[in-house]
C-alpha cells in the first residue's frame, strides 16, 4: 500500500509492522509525533504493544532495557537533549546485550536552544556501542526501522535509526508500506534464547565483574560490532530480495569516474543527488558517496570507494569542538591506510548546524572551494558562517 507519510509516521509504521511489544518513551520535539502515532496505533488496535509512559528519557531507556531482558521486542524514540539524558543507559543497553531499537530525530544541542536538525546528538553517542543507521528519505526510514530490529536481534546489540529533524521528521511524501505478513516472514518474533529474565530460572545479569573478566565482555562487544558489518549487508540484501528496495552501508552516486567526491550522510545525500546531477550537467567531474553507518564504521567499503580519488570533500552536519566534524575524523583515519599516491586530499566542511539549510547552492559552494584549492585552508572549513 502506498501512502503519504511524514518521516516520523514512517518510523511508527516501521515499529508497528515489526510487531514491537514494548514502547517506553518520553515526548520531545521533533520526535513526539512518532510516539503519538504509536499510541494511536495501540489505541486503535493496530499495534498489540505495551506502552510505558515514563518521567524522562533516562527512564525510557531503562524501561526498554528491562523489557528487552524480559525477552520482548522493544522500541523507543527521542532526539537531542533526550538522547543526551539517555547517554548512560545507552552504554548499559550495549553491555546488557539488549537489542533495543531507538529512532533518533537529529536535533541540535542546547545552549542556545534549537529544535532543528544537526547530527551532534547522535554522533556524540559514537562510543556507546550502538549500531547507527542514517537515512536520507522516508522510505529508507521505514525500511531501516524494520531492518534495525533484525540486525540488532541477530547480534544482541542495540541499534539506532537516525533521521533529520523536519527535513524528514515533518516532511510528507508518498512511500510504500510493506505488507505486515511479508514483514513477519522477514522478521520472525524475537527469540532471546536462554538469555532472558526467566522467573522459572532465576539468574543474575550485569553484576560486579572483576578485572579478570571485565575485558572479555568488552571484547565480545567489539567482536560482534565487527561482525555487524557482514550482518548489516546480509539483512539489507535479504530486504532487497523480499521488498525490492536495496540499501548499502556505502553507496556511490556517479562517483566511479569522479575526480572530486563529496562524502555525505542523512538528507544531504538526497539533495546531493540533485546537486551532483546539476554539476555533472555543467561538465564537472564530481560524484558522491553516501555513508549509512557510523557504527560499525564501514572502513573497507569506504577505502574501496575513495581509493585513488584526487579530492574528497566531507560534509559534516555536526562537529566536535577542538577537533573536526566526526565523519571527517573517521574518513581521515580510514584513508590513512592507503599508500600516499592513492590517498585523496581530504577537505572537511562544517555546514547546516542547527537546521541551517544545506541547499544545492551550499553543495555547489563546497564543491567549488574543493576544486579551486590545492590544499584545504584548514582542517575544517565552516560554510555560511557570519564571523562575529
Amino acid at each position: 500500500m502506498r501512502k503519504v507519510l511524514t518521516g516520523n509516521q514512517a518510523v511508527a509504521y516501521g515499529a508497528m509492522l515489526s510487531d514491537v511489544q514494548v514502547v517506553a518513551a518520553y515526548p520531545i520535539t521533533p520526535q513526539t509525533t512518532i510516539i503519538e502515532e504509536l499510541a494511536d496505533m495501540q489505541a486503535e488496535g493496530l499495534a498489540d504493544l505495551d506502552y510505558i509512559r515514563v518521567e524522562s528519557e533516562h527512564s525510557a531507556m531503562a524501561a526498554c532495557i528491562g523489557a528487552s531482558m524480559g525477552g520482548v521486542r522493544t522500541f523507543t524514540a527521542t532526539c537531542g537533549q533526550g538522547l543526551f539524558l539517555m547517554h548512560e543507559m545507552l552504554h548499559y543497553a550495549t553491555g546488557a546485550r539488549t537489542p533495543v531499537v531507538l529512532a533518533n530525530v537529529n536535533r541540535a544541542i542546547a545552549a542556545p536552544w534549537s529544535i532543528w536538525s544537526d547530527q551532534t546528538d547522535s554522533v556524540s553517542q559514537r562510543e556507546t556501542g550502538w549500531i547507527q543507521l542514517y537515512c536520507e528519505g522516508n522510505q529508507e526510514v521505514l525500511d531501516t526501522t524494520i531492518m534495525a530490529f533484525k540486525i540488532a536481534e541477530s547480534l544482541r546489540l542495540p541499534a539506532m535509526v537516525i533521521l533529520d529533524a523536519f527535513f524528514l521528521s515533518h516532511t510528507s511524501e508518498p512511500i510504500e508500506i510493506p505488507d505486515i505478513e511479508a514483514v513477519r516472514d522477514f522478521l520472525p518474533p524475537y527469540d532471546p534464547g536462554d538469555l532472558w529474565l526467566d522467573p522459572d530460572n532465576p539468574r543474575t545479569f550485569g553484576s560486579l565483574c572483576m578485572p579478570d573478566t571485565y575485558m572479555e565482555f568488552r571484547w565480545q562487544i567489539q567482536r560482534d560490532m565487527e561482525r555487524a558489518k557482514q550482518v548489516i549487508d546480509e539483512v539489507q540484501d535479504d530486504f532487497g530480495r523480499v521488498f525490492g528496495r536495496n540499501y548499502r552501508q556505502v553507496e556511490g552516486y556517479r562517483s566511479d569516474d569522479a575526480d572530486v567526491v563529496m562524502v555525505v550522510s542523512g538528507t544531504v545525500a538526497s539533495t546531493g543527488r540533485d546537486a551532483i546531477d546539476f554539476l555533472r550537467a555543467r561538465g564537472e567531474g564530481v560524484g558522491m558517496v553516501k555513508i549509512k553507518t557510523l557504527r560499525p564504521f564501514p572502513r573497507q567499503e569506504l577505502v574501496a570507494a575513495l581509493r585513488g580519488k584526487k579530492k574528497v570533500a566531507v560534509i559534516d552536519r555536526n562537529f566536535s569542538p577542538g577537533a573536526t566534524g566526526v565523519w571527517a575524523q573517521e574518513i581521515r583515519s580510514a584513508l590513512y591506510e592507503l599508500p600516499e599516491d592513492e590517498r585523496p586530499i581530504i577537505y572537511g566542511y562544517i555546514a547546516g548546524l542547527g537546521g541551517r539549510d544545506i541547499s544545492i547552492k551550499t553543495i555547489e559552494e563546497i564543491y567549488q572551494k574543493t576544486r579551486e584549492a590545492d590544499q584545504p585552508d584548514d582542517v575544517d572549513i565552516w560554510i555560511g558562517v557570519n564571523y562575529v
Partner: protein
Amino acid sequence: MIEIRFHGRGGQGTVVASKLLATSLFLDGKYSQSFPAFGTERRGAPVTAFLRVDDKPVRIRTEIYEPDHIVILDPLLVDQVPLTDGLKRDGIVIINSSRKPMEFADRFKGFKVATVPAGQIAVKHHLGTPQSPIVNTAILGAVAKVLSIVTMENLIEAIKSDVPSKADENAAAAQEAYKTVSDVVQL
C-alpha cells in the same frame, strides 16, 4: 517540478494545507513532498510551508527559495513578511482576501494575482471562529481552480480522509472557493 510556498499564521492550518495538497497530488499519481519551515508552533505567528510536485521522485530536501507560485492564507502578512522573495516572474499569487486582485497592485506589481474570500467561506461553513477562521481547505479549492495542478475529485478525497474533524464542511468550503475564486489578473 513545480514548487509552491504557503504563507500563513499558526492556527490557520497552513502546514495541513500543504500536506493535504501533497496527498491530493499523490492520489493524482504524482510524486509530491510537503514540509513546514518550522518555528515553534505558536498561534498567530507567521508560518511557512513548502510543497513540491513532479512526475519523478522528489529528492531535493531543502527550503524553497524560488517558488513557482505562492499561497497566502492571511492577507495581513502582506505588510509583514517578504512574501514574493524569489517568486518567479510568471508566478501566481493566491491570496485569502475579499478584495479584488487589482487592489494589490502596489504590493504585487509584475506578478499574477487571484483572490478568494477564504475567511468568509470558512466562517460560513463553521470552520474555526469568525475571529480566527481555519481557511486551509477553502484556499486549496482556489489553488485547484487557479493552478490546475490537482483534480478537484482527489482534493476532496484527501480532505475527507485526512482532516481531523468536520470533513463535509471542509469539503464544501473547498468546493465553494473553487467556484468563487477570482480570475487571475496580471498586475
